[in-house]
């Protein structure tokens, strides 16, 4: 059992429960065994239980303990956390989920048309292969 994601200062985590569900935050300090102090450029520094955090692979390297807001914002930007998140498989999955949940009826119609079109191309090719086989 090798652990790859650690609670450390600078670790980026996703809040997976509660009113701030879905937000990316940075662990800036550890209060005790169950709680961390988290911060993000667009929220006030608060404590959170580790049970509400999902650690990601992204870390901000060389972040000192409880940095000032200005330092945190600069480090967050220079580590390109948002870009890394958006290009990660996990981040992309969540983005797709969010997009699907936000579709209106016309969008769902467009999705249906696109799916039908794609499947018709696939089935046409499949039909060709079957006829060759037969």
């Amino acid at each position, binding site marked *: *059992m090798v*652990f*790859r*994601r*650690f*609670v*450390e*200062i600078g670790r980026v985590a996703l809040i*997976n*429960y509660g009113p701030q*569900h*879905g937000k990316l935050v940075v662990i800036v*300090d*550890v*209060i*005790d065994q169950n709680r961390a*102090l988290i911060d993000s450029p667009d929220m*006030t*520094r*608060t*404590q959170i239980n*580790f*049970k509400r955090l*999902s*650690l990601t692979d992204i870390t901000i390297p060389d972040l*000192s*303990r*409880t940095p000032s807001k200005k330092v945190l914002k600069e480090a967050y930007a220079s580590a390109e956390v948002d870009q890394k998140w958006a290009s990660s498989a996990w981040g992309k999955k969540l983005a797709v989920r969010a997009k699907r949940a936000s579709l209106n009826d016309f969008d769902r119609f467009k999705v249906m048309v696109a799916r039908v079109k794609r499947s018709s191309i696939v089935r046409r090719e499949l039909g060709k292969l079957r006829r060759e086989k037969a």
Partner: protein
Amino acid sequence: MKLWATNEVRAKSKFWYFLRKLQKVKKAHGQLLAINEIFEKYPTTIKNYGIWVRYQSRTGYHNMYKEYRDLTLNGAVEQMYDEMASRHRVRFPCIQIIKTGTIPVSLCKRVNTKQFHNSKIKFPLTTRKIRPPTRSLKTTYKASRPNTFV
């Protein structure tokens, strides 16, 4: 006098209780001048709180010194009450807080607080319980067994 109570009425009552132990004055002979809620000055910095407690156990009165890491003094006091109840079965009425204070890192006594005095602290979260993000999405039955590895 600094004391902890769930509301103002209880706070005033506790005030007179403690004052009677210090001076020969009771509520009927005294006048409460001010009652103010004290708010935490720096609620975003982690502090090591030391709490000196006098509590009544089943066999007598004892003193204790406890340390907690928290952002606010109220948080540390809440932790203390919870811990006294769980570890020693002592309830709120049997606990008197003698003194509280923020302890500098060099003077902390308890290993449990000192283990977090590490600017390069790093540890894994060994088990992960996946739960639905809201209680309304909870289901009684699941299709597969959970995997609790990270």
